[in-house]
Every structure is written in structure tokens, then in C-alpha cells.
């Protein structure tokens, strides 16, 4: 099975089955908070919220990594910066000050989320413009280096908590909803996730997406038909950074806390693991991958603090034997065909 699952032409007969499975998944996600309450496990709602937020980040990374073939090991930068947008807006609001002497604070989600998208995109434009002049291992290392630079920058920013990070006492507000309520916040994240996946689905199938997938497969061929790869890669990298910044802003709201941990290279690694677990280049793979990693982490940490020792072999198994992550596995078992 190749890696281009979302960019491959669909044999038309399977479309109906896929649409059905997708509908079932959507209904399941909507019903989830009520189901877990019914079985007396309300603590699963925050867990599912975390899955959704990571799914947004992983899906965004997947556009660069899975579709465009840009193996970024620095996406924690966009995730963390998205979180800090929320934190800094909140701190500025509380202090009644001006960020950089210009920008007033706010606690409105309708401001902080677009701001995080914007900042994530701008940062990705900057980092991408420099990193995309390299490729292969060099690209991996230089994206990692940029993310680590940002990590140390925020560690040293004492005004925003430095090492310890910042607490955000209250989640951002949206239309007078009680965002503190876990179920309400779950639905906010679900709505955002749905929009992100919809947007990515359109992008991947668009002219831009076809060019991007072409670049992953053979840059020389793309140049030979008159397409200069660099700006398309940069465009995809920026979109990817925007989505990841958005996820970071949601995570800061979810945790009501932001710290350099969100920028740490291990976070970049986790996002990559989610993409690989779910199936590189597949549309819904990142959702499955995020669910798998969050659940694994939760289950394994309850057994042992050395949970990563167990995660390693599991990951190895998935990469070596499933050919295409969980999506590929589901496919061969004949279930969850919706992801194509």
C-alpha cells in the first residue's frame, strides 16, 4: 500500500460505503459525551477533547509530512506558539496592559484562535522560507533546530513565566457559553476539528493538493512540467503551521496552562508518531493516530512510569507490519473505509 491514500484516485464503487462510515464516525463523536456519561465515565470527555486537539495538530502536520513529503521535526514550535498566543492575550488582559505596547489583551476565543492561526502561519512562513532550501535529513535537523531555539527563547522569557509557564485562570469565552464545562468545550473542539478536517480534505483534492502530492513523488518531474516546487512547499508548510497553531491555542485553553513543554522537541516527536501511527498521508489517519497515542499513554502510565519503553516496540510494530498505520490496518480488515 502506498502512502498517497488521500491523493489517489478512488474507485467509485467504494464511495458510498466510505460516506456511510464517515457518517457513523461523525455521529459517534457527537454522541460520545452522552454515551460516556451514560456508562458513568465522564472523565473520558476531557480525554476525547485532548484526542481532538492533537488530531488537529497531527492532521496539519500530515499535510506537510504525508502529502508534501516534508519531514518536519519542528512542529512543536507552531503548537507552542499557538498556546502562548492564548497565554499572552490572557496575561495582557488581566494586567490591563498592551502587548509590545500595541495590542490589548483579550479572552475572546473568536480573537485568540484566529490570532494563533495567524501567528502559526507567519512563523511557519519564516521557518519554512529558510528550511525549505534544504531537504532530507538536513531539513529534519534544521526544523528541529528552529523549534529548539524557540523553546529556549520562551524558557528565558521570565515575563511570561519562563520555565514554569503561565496559568490561564479561565478558558477563553465564546458566545456566553460555559467553556469551563467539559462537554461544552468538547463540542467547541469537535466543531473546530470538523472544520479543519473539511478544509484539509478540500485542499488535498484541489489543484494545490495535486501539485503538493506530485512534489512529494518526484520534484524533478514537477519542474519538468513547469512547476517550481519551492513556493508550493512553502504554501503547504504555512497552512500546516496555521493548523498546528490553532491546535496549540485550543490546548492552552484545555489545560488552562501554557509552558515551554508545548514547544519541546518531544512534542514534535509525538505529533510525528501520531501521523505515523494513523497512516502517513491519509485523511483521517491523524485522528486515529492521536486517539491511539493519547489512549496508549493514559493506559500505560497507569501501569508504569516507563511507559515509553512499551510505546517504542508498539510503534515499531505498527511501522514495520501494518503498511500504512492504523488506516492501512483497518483497510485490510475491511473496516473504517471512510478514511480514503
Amino acid at each position: 500500500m502506498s502512502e498517497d491514500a488521500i491523493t489517489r484516485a478512488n474507485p467509485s464503487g467504494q464511495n458510498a460505503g466510505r460516506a456511510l462510515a464517515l457518517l457513523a464516525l461523525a455521529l459517534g463523536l457527537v454522541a460520545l459525551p452522552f454515551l460516556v456519561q451514560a456508562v458513568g465515565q465522564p472523565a473520558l470527555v476531557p480525554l476525547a477533547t485532548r484526542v481532538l486537539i492533537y488530531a488537529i495538530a497531527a492532521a496539519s502536520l500530515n499535510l506537510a509530512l504525508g502529502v508534501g513529503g516534508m519531514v518536519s521535526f519542528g512542529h512543536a514550535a507552531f503548537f507552542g506558539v499557538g498556546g502562548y498566543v492564548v497565554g499572552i492575550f490572557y496575561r495582557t488582559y488581566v494586567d490591563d496592559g498592551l502587548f509590545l505596547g500595541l495590542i490589548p489583551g483579550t479572552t475572546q476565543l473568536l480573537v485568540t484562535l484566529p490570532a494563533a492561526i495567524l501567528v502559526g502561519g507567519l512563523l511557519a512562513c519564516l521557518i519554512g522560507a529558510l528550511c525549505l532550501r534544504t531537504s532530507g535529513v538536513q531539513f529534519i535537523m534544521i526544523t528541529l533546530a528552529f523549534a529548539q531555539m524557540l523553546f529556549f527563547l520562551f524558557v528565558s522569557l521570565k515575563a511570561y513565566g519562563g520555565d514554569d509557564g503561565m496559568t490561564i485562570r479561565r478558558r477563553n469565552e465564546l458566545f456566553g457559553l460555559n467553556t469551563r464545562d467539559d462537554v461544552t468545550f468538547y463540542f467547541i473542539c469537535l466543531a473546530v476539528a470538523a472544520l479543519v478536517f473539511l478544509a484539509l480534505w478540500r485542499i488535498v483534492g484541489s489543484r494545490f493538493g495535486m501539485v503538493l502530492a506530485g512534489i512529494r513523488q518526484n520534484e524533478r518531474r514537477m519542474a519538468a512540467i513547469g512547476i517550481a516546487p519551492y513556493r508550493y512547499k512553502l504554501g503547504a508548510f504555512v497552512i500546516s503551521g496555521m493548523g498546528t497553531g490553532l491546535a496549540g491555542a485550543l490546548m492552552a485553553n484545555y489545560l488552562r496552562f501554557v509552558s515551554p513543554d508545548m514547544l519541546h522537541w518531544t512534542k514534535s516527536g509525538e505529533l510525528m508518531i501520531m501521523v505515523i501511527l494513523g497512516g502517513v498521508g491519509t485523511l483521517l489517519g491523524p485522528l486515529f493516530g492521536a486517539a491511539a497515542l493519547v489512549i496508549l499513554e493514559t493506559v500505560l502510565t497507569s501501569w508504569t512510569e516507563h511507559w515509553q519503553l512499551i510505546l517504542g516496540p508498539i510503534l515499531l510494530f505498527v511501522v514495520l507490519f501494518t503498511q500504512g498505520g492504523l488506516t492501512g490496518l483497518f483497510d485490510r480488515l475491511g473496516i473504517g473505509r471512510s478514511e480514503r
Partner: protein
Amino acid sequence: MSQPLLSVRGLRKRFGGLIATDGVDLDVVEGEIHALIGPNGAGKTTLLTQLFGELSHDAGEIRLDGEAIDSLATPQRVHRGLARTFQINQLLPDFTMLDNVALAVQAREGHSFRFFAAARGDKSLRQRAREYLGAAGLAHRAEIKVANLSHGEQKQLEFVIALACEPRLLLLDEPMAGLGHAESEQMVAMLANLKGRITMLLVEHDMDAVFALADRISVLVYGRVIATGTAEEIRENQEVRIAYLGEGDA
């Protein structure tokens, strides 16, 4: 003679100690099929690669329609009307034949920063791509993934993609190599059919095809053009006989 479509002067390329292109002068006239022949390792592919801008030359000048194109990157040269096929296939293996051709059609329509409408649902794009495939007798294979095509079909696809770029000057690097007898004849027929409409610089070892198609032939040996002329002139040329034809390479 009017101004040539392609004019190369003093082109030079060195790989370490090896001089792959050694002061090449070459004119390709609009409308002609100009064959470039020479023994293995003569530097034919290297020359095409420099003309196409994928490899920079150390010295010399390349003009297309009178304008120097030396400083242009490959995609810009494609926009100026250059296209090439590769001796070693350069295709998009995860895509279908149709996708491969449709992307070339799409690239001709300007930038691809269009994020919303489904490219595979674009009827005019798909239709034109199908026409190109149909003209090469490949319509029935349109939906097959490139990785699952035979070598000969991939070779033909290379050619169709190049045509979909609607070039003024087509650089062909051994389009017949690896084709079966029937496929090879079909390729010769297609080239003959395009003759006059698209100017071609044809690198080919199949001498029957070369003599059948070419208006003029240049012979490249050790990176130098040792002779240029009509098929007759090349056949009679003593130096060429010794250096190349005498080897029985064809």
C-alpha cells in the same frame, strides 16, 4: 537560413576530470527533427540536461528563439516552450496515467494556488488529458497507477506528458529505448506525425528510426560535435564512420 529556434554556442561542462560537454555548438531550426547521435557516454543526456536547465553549464550560451535562457530555471524554460522526456523515467508513481497528464495540463494554466475545487472533478482538465492519452493509444490505461504500468507504457507516458506541455522545442532522450517492436513503430509514427508542428531534438540509438525521421543529424563524440548534416551527409562522413557508425552501435 532564418534564425534557429535553439542555438547553442561554446557549451562546456566538466565533471571533475571528465569533460562531458566540450565546446558544443548546435543549431536547431524551427520545424525540423534534429537527431543527436553518439556512442554511450558521449554526453548526449548531459547536453539535454543543460539545455533544460537542470544542470548548469560552466561556459557557453544557450539561446531559445534568439533570447538567452542560460539564467532561467527549468520551470521558466518550460514556460518559454521547452519540454523533455527522460532516458530514465521521471513519473509520479502513486498517480494514475491520467493524473500525470492532467497535472501537466494544469501547469500550463498558470499557478496552482487553488485550494478548494476538486482537481479530479475538473472536467475540462481531465478531458484534455484524456485526449493526449487517446492520441497515443493509451486511453484504455488512463486510470492505471503508474507504478503498475509496463516499462514501455511508462516510456510512452513520458512522451505524452511532454506533449501536454505543448512545447515549441521538444528534447527527446531515447524515446524508443526499451519499447517493444510494435510500440517502437508506433512511436516513430507519432514523431513523424508531429514533424513540422513541434521542433525536436532527438537523442536516439535506433539508427533506422533516426534515418527515417531526422532532417539533420549531429554526431556527438567525447562531448564534441564532430559532424552535422543531412542523413546522407552523415552516412558518407568518414570521421563519423570511424568514430561511431563503424562501431556498429545501432
